[in-house]
């Protein structure tokens, strides 16, 4: 029997009655001295199917309450039994406790930023065939420059968002774009009590940034803020 791990919470925090995880397995709590870990039992390790990934996230999301925000665990962590869970989690107990304290009363909100379809300058993702080596190198240089400009713009937008949101955002992360014209994401750790004001800031930014579409997502468990 393998235990699949979902999230870490303060000791005593148990799942809502009837909560099921991957493959419909009932969510159980492995209690430690200061921390609790939500797990499910399986005959073999769950595969990373879309259904399993959604089920994993659903369990972590179900752990969120106004007062408790769990430490979300990455999919794919397993243990041979409850003692192994207690040992693994207990080995970094101070770190998990510090994160729980930091996350309490907060959630992660995301903003996906993408150029609007008619913004040609940022979407030169195809490079023409080069006839000579010099042309090939010049094409690569132009592409590199385009990527660098787009990444710099992403960083400016991330900084601008923080400047506008001020103390509404307790922490932030930028997932940079993978290439020229590719979308990128911002992650913000926001107290529940500040969520409405935060959304007003993002909505206002969306109307002011020309050529870009801002799509808010969340709230999420704070996957982006565990490090």
């Amino acid at each position: 029997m393998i235990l699949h791990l979902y999230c870490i919470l303060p000791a005593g925090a148990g799942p809502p009655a009837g909560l099921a995880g991957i493959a419909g397995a009932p969510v159980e709590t492995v209690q430690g001295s200061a921390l609790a870990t939500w797990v499910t039992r399986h005959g073999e390790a769950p595969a990373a199917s879309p259904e399993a990934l959604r089920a994993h996230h659903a369990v972590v999301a179900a752990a969120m309450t106004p007062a408790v925000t769990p430490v979300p665990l990455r999919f794919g962590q397993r243990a041979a039994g409850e003692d192994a869970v207690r040992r693994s989690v207990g080995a970094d107990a101070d770190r998990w406790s510090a994160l729980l304290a930091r996350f309490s009363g907060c959630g992660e909100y995301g903003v996906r930023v993408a150029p609007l379809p008619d913004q040609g300058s940022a979407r030169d993702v195809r490079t023409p065939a080069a006839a000579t080596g010099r042309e090939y190198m010049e094409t690569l240089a132009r592409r590199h420059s385009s990527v660098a400009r787009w990444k710099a713009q992403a960083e400016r937008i991330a900084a601008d968002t923080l400047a506008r949101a001020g103390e509404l955002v307790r922490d932030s992360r930028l997932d940079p774009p993978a290439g020229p014209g590719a979308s990128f994401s911002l992650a913000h750790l926001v107290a529940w009590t500040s969520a409405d004001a935060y959304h007003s800031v993002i909505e206002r930014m969306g109307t002011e940034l020309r050529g870009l579409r801002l799509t808010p997502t969340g709230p999420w468990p704070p996957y982006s803020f565990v490090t």
Partner: protein
Amino acid sequence: MPDFPMSPDDELSLAEIVNRVLDKGAVVSGDVVISVAGVDLVYVGLRLLVSSVESIRGRLEGGTP
């Protein structure tokens, strides 16, 4: 404030979930194993790396090639 208990929005794209659940979140033990099509793939193997280093060091100290 959101409604509690939170339930996943059915409209959430799988890409948003995958990006967080597979690429973010805390790692407890240093070994994250993803099973795909019945094959276990080590996604993050810090403990394996440390074990390998120790094994190699032990062989060097023992004079074993």
